[in-house]
């Protein structure tokens, strides 16, 4: 290893000129300093958020986003705790706290109020809500209303309040009434909004591999939580402009279809549903995951010149004028796409991931500096598992993982800073989440007790 500072390589022609490279080098250095959140103001430091969500992580996740941007977020749960504390992979937990709850516990205060059963606690909640800019809840549609603490009661005393309700089927329509008390989960949100129908092997493959397949993460709950936080952020802008609050209604059965918009439009224009096509892609090709000598790589070479470049670096140039893959490699004949898939695989297994990545990068760097504009950018990247991502240099320099320490929970790594902002960045400040830990403080501060 040499001690010389690494020269930054560029892969796009527009940034390849000497002057630009110099400018970008100093800009990159400046950014690394500017994007450090320490000591920066927090954008939502003037608002209170009450999170009364129960047994539904979408509410907790929505509250986390507000907490990361600096709001005072009070998580309200019954004395025996939110059941979300016990939802955790394989039952792994730290002193009774499951891992998803532990990471979404960021920057929150915890108080106990039994909204389901105690009239007195509901009154306290209503008094807290007088001070709140945002209330989040995930009970049955109309349930809080029947307890006298729904949007229409709370907004009378606090017309500036934003009330975010999250349920499977929303707060209005006949179906919402019929399924008002239907409980929520991640997998039902995924299934009911159209995601698993698009994942899995083609219908003529063996069972169960040809079944619809869920995403291996909480795609339903995280998308619903994001939709809630985003809807709430729009409402905060209106509140800042006019002082007026409103109700925000999230249906978790909308999660995937409203995020990507593909299912309703395909259903309409094709007048049928898409089939599942395994590891292929509907639009771009090659665009997917391949085995290599020491693991997995993804390859993206969707444009014609990217594809030709890929054939060159893999030694597959003989396929260049094969009628099955010209002119556009649209994989509507799945068999042909699979032939190409296998041809590429025969080559990728000969090399390690690093070798393939370097082949592609070397090609792109050369093409970027060439006068010939048809060079293409074949992209190859190693598939990271989460532990590999934890070790990645890029994310270390960008401080995506932060070590946090808590008296009860001990020391661990948590992901933070999902977006870098120069003036008012999000951040993680603490993670402690003992049940009722802030009862006294919060009552003193907001209920003058």
């Amino acid at each position, binding site marked *: 290893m040499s001690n010389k500072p690494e020269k930054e390589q560029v*892969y796009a022609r*527009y940034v390849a000129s000497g002057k630009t490279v110099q400018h970008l080098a100093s*800009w990159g*250095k400046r950014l690394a300093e500017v*994007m450090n959140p320490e000591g920066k*103001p927090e954008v939502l430091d003037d608002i209170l958020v009450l999170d009364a969500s129960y047994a539904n992580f979408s509410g907790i996740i929505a509250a986390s986003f507000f907490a990361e941007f600096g709001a005072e977020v009070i998580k309200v749960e019954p004395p025996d705790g939110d*059941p979300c504390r*016990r939802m955790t992979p*394989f039952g792994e937990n730290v002193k009774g706290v499951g*891992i*998803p709850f532990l*990471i979404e516990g960021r920057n929150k205060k915890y108080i106990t109020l039994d909204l389901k059963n105690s009239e007195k606690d509901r009154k306290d909640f209503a008094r807290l809500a007088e001070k709140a800019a945002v209330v989040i809840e995930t009970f049955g549609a*109309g349930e809080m209303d029947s307890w006298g603490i729904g949007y229409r009661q709370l907004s009378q005393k606090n017309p500036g309040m934003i009330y975010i309700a999250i349920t*499977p089927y929303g*707060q209005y329509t006949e179906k*919402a009434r019929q399924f008002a008390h*239907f409980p929520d*989960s*991640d997998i*039902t949100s995924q299934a*009911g909004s159209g995601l*698993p129908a698009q994942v899995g092997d083609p219908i003529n493959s063996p069972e169960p*591999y040809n*079944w619809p397949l869920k995403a291996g993460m909480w*795609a339903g709950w995280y998308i619903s939580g*994001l939709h809630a936080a985003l*809807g*709430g952020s729009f409402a905060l802008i209106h509140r*800042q402009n006019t002082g007026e609050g409103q109700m925000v*209604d999230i*249906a978790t*059965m909308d999660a995937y*279809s409203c995020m990507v918009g593909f299912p*309703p*439009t*395909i*259903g*309409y*224009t094709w007048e049928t*549903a898409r089939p599942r096509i*395994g590891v292929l892609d*509907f*639009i*771009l090709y090659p665009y*997917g995951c391949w085995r290599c000598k020491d693991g997995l790589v*993804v390859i993206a070479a*969707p444009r014609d010149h990217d594809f030709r470049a890929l054939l060159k670096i893999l030694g597959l140039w003989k396929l260049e004028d094969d009628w099955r893959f010209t002119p556009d490699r649209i994989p509507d004949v799945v068999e042909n796409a699979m032939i190409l898939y296998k041809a590429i695989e025969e080559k990728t297994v000969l090399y390690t991931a690093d070798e393939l990545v370097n082949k592609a990068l070397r090609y792109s760097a050369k093409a970027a500096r060439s006068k010939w504009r048809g060079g293409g*950018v074949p992209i190859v*990247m*190693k598939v*990271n*598992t989460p532990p590999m991502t934890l070790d990645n240099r890029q994310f270390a320099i*960008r401080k*995506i993982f932060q070590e946090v320490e808590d008296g009860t929970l001990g020391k661990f*790594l948590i*992901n933070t800073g*999902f977006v870098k902002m*120069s*003036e*008012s960045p999000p951040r993680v400040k603490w993670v402690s989440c003992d049940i009722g830990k802030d009862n006294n403080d919060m009552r003193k501060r907001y209920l003058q007790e």
Partner: protein
Amino acid sequence: MEDYFSYTAKLFDPAAVNEKTEILKGIRVLDFSHVIFGPTATRLLAQYGAEVIKLELPYHGDLWRPATYWGKYWKHSNPLWHFVTQNKYFLGLDLKKPEAKEIIYRLAETADVVAENFAAGTAEAWGVGYTQISEINPKIIYLSCSTYGQYGPLRFYPGWDLLAQAASGVLSLTGYPDTDKYYKLPDYLGDYIPGNMGAMAILMALYFRKKTGKGQYIDLAQSEALMRLLWHFTFFNLTGKEIGRTGNSDPTMVPASIFKTRDGKFVALACATEKQFAGLCSAMNREDLLKEKVYTDPFERLKPANAAALTKIAGDWLKSLDVEEITGLANDKGFPAAEVLDDYQICHDPWRRQRGSVILFNDEMYKELVMAGPSAQLSKTPARTKWLARPIGYHNRFVLKKFLDLSEEEISVLEKKRIVGTFDDRPGLKPPIYYNLDEDPIFHYGREGKK
């Protein structure tokens, strides 16, 4: 008191949406972004009333215009592109020419937001990056979207949604543990989710600017945005173990899986709480399970062997029922269950049409198209669709005359020099064949002698 659901029906009446306030009215966005990631962030702003000016290279345009699903066009357009580009103003301008840059700089003087998702450094190289635009307008909010971010050793690596899925760890999570197949998240979810986060970051910056008068620079890396959705990192850090691929089962609750039903359909079923589990046991007539210690303790129940046994019990029971029976029982007994729905079912679901989360939109140019409605329903300031995608340069005159006061003569000169331009006669770029652009008042905005 009034019945709750008649109260909410009025509060969220889809027929009243267009009369309600547009929150971002008066906010102007210069949108240099293309394909899905950046355009999704600006689309959300446009749905709430922002004036989003979408810049495209004349005669070529956005990469996603002609890249359609299985090569199928709809009225010479990419049907999926309408969702991402709704309510935007389409300006065809060749950014590499100096006169074009002058136009951009003038637009930047009064703009509130700029968004771009070129390869990192490209906007700076072209003179329209944050360092240049913020000199013209220090209060600008500037969003740069990329796969790895604007600083750090990987910043110049090329990337798409797929690369972000690979770098973040997401791609290693979907599939069956006994196979060597890894499925990516479908439909470029690795662009859409970060795009939504980009919109949120812009809103936070707007909120901050109103309080302090300060603009800012936002560096959004899609791989990092995806990492925010995973508890897998902390799990590994604390236990030293990997979750890996778990097939159709959710390892955080049990049973929680996708099952095949008697009528050959698929149902997702989950028990997230003790109460839901008791409800399922009652529905299965298996209350005996509630007496076994391995199933009563929630952490114990989640251990792989116990979870597998319970999943098998539930699966065997579900095989004997039709999907309608299962969701009915779920509603009665209080546990989550939902049919696995496909494109066609979602498109034609009456609940979504009533709710407005799937809409039949009637556009001036393209007529009827079914598309997704807002992901969040806001009672006072709802999102809305006003128009669909337009050919490249459709709003050239509208933008240049209305926002910059350019004259017809000045625009003609720019057109002759090919600084401003429209579309080639290619699908994806041009209007539908039946549409007469000559008679379109917006395309010919402020032009004497044209109808």
